[in-house]
């Protein structure tokens, strides 16, 4: 309906969407896959926090903190090709964890809800980037609000020549698999899931230090988002500027939820979201359809998934309730 009201032919619009997202090899590889990388890495981090019952809404801020750290490292360090980029990524992860650590500290010390503090830290990070690229980190000519480009040794290698696909895609896949393995196979991952599923049972039956687990989950989540920022700098932008992230940290929340907080499923949902977004850009470019349409489609996809999830949980929950009250009366 929305598309038709734009007065354009449906076929033309769908064709533009198709060619902009997955229909051509360059759109698929240089557009969608490249865009799926930060969505995956932040999304996995968000899933880790959400699984532990910590609502980290600050992926965007943590990603920017990581981007700042990676840029700083890339501009100031030269330790050869492999080591420099590795150091940039490690610094990015540490910066992301530190940015989330502020929220963890506020929660532990003053009981500030992480939902609030992480959102606020997003704004601070965005403004920090604005300040840095106009002030201390601005490129030498002082014309553009951006930094110099980082040295080639601090950049991630391309996976395929003549494309924008970089080694960060491999890192994203490895991270998703590793997170899945840790969550399902290790004692720490089990503690995380238990603390998130029922803090009281985790504490009493599992003797789990729930606040510690929650804090660790928040830090890990921040480290992943920071790493995504580092990968973006080292693989795509090669420098810091405002709007470096088109809201990856926010889209990644939707990606995590669409993937039902399952790291392997997030690989798929990140791809779907990336395709939606690049396709929307294609529609805008070739058929004049506003890209907000893609945002509307994303929102509908989330509503569908959340709705289906709530429905499937609600049905059995009713029978549990009935049984508990029957027990209580006996």
């Amino acid at each position, binding site marked *: 309906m929305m598309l038709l009201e734009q007065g354009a032919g449906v076929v033309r619009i769908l064709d533009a969407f198709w060619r902009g997202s997955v229909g051509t090899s360059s759109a698929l590889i240089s557009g969608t896959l490249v865009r799926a990388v930060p969505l995956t890495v932040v999304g996995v981090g968000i899933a880790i926090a959400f699984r532990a019952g910590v609502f980290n809404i600050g992926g965007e801020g943590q990603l920017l903190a990581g981007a700042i750290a990676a840029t700083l490292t890339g501009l100031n360090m030269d330790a050869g090709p492999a080591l420099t980029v590795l150091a940039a990524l490690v610094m990015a992860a540490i910066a992301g964890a530190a940015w989330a650590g502020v929220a963890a500290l506020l929660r532990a010390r003053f009981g500030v809800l992480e939902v609030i503090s992480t959102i606020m830290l997003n704004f601070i990070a965005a403004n920090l980037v604005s300040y840095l690229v106009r002030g201390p980190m601005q490129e030498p000519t002082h014309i553009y609000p951006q930094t110099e480009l980082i040295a080639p040794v601090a950049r991630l290698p391309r996976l395929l020549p003549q494309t924008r696909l970089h080694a960060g895609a491999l890192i994203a896949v490895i991270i998703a698999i590793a997170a899945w393995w840790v969550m399902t*196979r*290790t*004692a720490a991952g*089990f*503690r995380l*899931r*238990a603390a998130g*599923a*029922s803090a*009281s*049972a*985790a*504490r*009493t*039956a*599992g*003797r*789990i*230090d729930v606040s510690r687990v929650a804090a660790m989950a928040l830090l890990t989540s921040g480290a992943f988002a920071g790493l995504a920022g580092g990968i973006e700098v080292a693989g795509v932008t090669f420098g810091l500027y405002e709007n470096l992230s088109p809201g990856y940290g926010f889209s990644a929340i939707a990606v995590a939820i669409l993937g039902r907080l399952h790291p392997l499923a997030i690989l798929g949902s990140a791809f779907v979201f990336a395709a939606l977004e690049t396709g929307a850009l294609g529609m805008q470019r070739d058929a004049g359809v506003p890209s907000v349409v893609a945002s509307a489609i994303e929102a509908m996809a989330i509503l569908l998934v959340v709705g289906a999830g709530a429905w499937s949980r609600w049905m*059995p929950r009713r029978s*549990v309730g009935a*049984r*508990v009250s029957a*027990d*209580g*009366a*006996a």
Partner: protein
Amino acid sequence: MTVGAAVDGVALQLRGIIKRFGAVTALDRAHLTVRGGTVHALVGENGAGKSTLMRIAAGLETVDAGSVELFGRRARGGSVAESAASGLGMVHQHLSLVPALTTTENFALGRHGLYRGDAVGALLARTSADAGLSITPDVPVSELSIVEQQRLEIVKALARGARILVLDEPTAVLAPQEVQDLLSWIRRFAARGGTIVLVTHKLREVIAVADDVTVLRRGAVVLTRAVAGASEEALADAIFGQGAVGPNGTQPSSAAPNGDVVVHVDAMDVSDLRGVTRIRAATLDIRRGEIVGVAAVEGSGHRELMLAVAGLRAPDSGRLVLPRGIAFVPADRARDAMIPEFSLTENFALRGAGSRRGVISWPDMTQRTRAGIARFEVVASSPAAPARSLSGGNQQRLILARELEGDVDLVVADNPTRGLDARGTRFVHEQLRAAAARGAAVVMHSSDLDEVLGLASRVLVVHHGTVREQPVDRDVVGRAMLGVE
């Protein structure tokens, strides 16, 4: 100012109330006459039917037979609105306020029409001033102490025109000074013509504050009298009856407590989560092979004692020596003992999760779960089934299977048979006895005194934070629970 009319008349009259829940008769021809302008105490053991009787008066439950009259008017029953309109308000044991809303907003809940903050605020101020209960307006309820929340509940009921206030165990959650304040408020309220029904476990409060007392035992009224001249002993006898044989016909274990000491407690103080000291200077030893029963009425501090002995609540002071292998069966199994959405295997893995390292071998864990399911005869489709798919009895079997696996030095069980049928109850009892026979020390609490007496080789009574050993004798233990020497 006077709170209501009918000072000399009968405010609340319940006649021949019969109430059944399935096969259980909760109330058997219970009657209650509450004179206007008096404080009427309603006492009895857990499960004696006190709360049910008051829920019927408040219109929260229907009756199978009998009648309810409020200020001489016959109520049709089963309608909260009707009871409230007739002037009866109930303050529940578990307060029903919305934490995220302010005092004023909570006060407005259940009122009709538009919400006008200033009008509601004025009414709150007027009602609370009239009642002599100070309420801070516009503060989130989550920031209030328990006693302030309770005050708000009372003021809410009064604003709806309540002339009879039913307070269901109002002192169970309060600190001593708060109890004193509440009791003196109750007296002032009655002096101004208001009527109070005080549901309580605590005989000292009855003697201190009530004009009349009614004792319920197993759903029937066994005593109604004026409090003047009544002794705590006489009331305790009425509450617990005479004779020590429990209805479940279990015999006390006779194992001689001559094993090693596995739990050593010396001058231990324990607080609840609010920081109020609930257990004071507890000193006790628990040995291998014995079953120690903990008897107490609600709000005595036994919860904190059980948590401390289970190693889940650190003492404020004193010494607490615990063994390594501790099995804990909490009272609220759906909340504290298991995760309903997790599989049986994952719930099995919950024990020891806090200190486990490295990789979990799920095939091994599934194997152990399968063995536990077999040994404890859990009816389950598979170890991969979610725990919520099990019945309450089977959930408890699973929890016991998990907690009693391996080397267990100490078993702490809080109301382990709550909500279980006779077969499930017997099974739990057998398991606790078997654990003791294998050389574990067992500490159990039940709100059913007969269950404690039936299982325990030794009984500890917690009264008002003090822990004392008592002989396994129904009368003696019953009195000690109520603080009657």
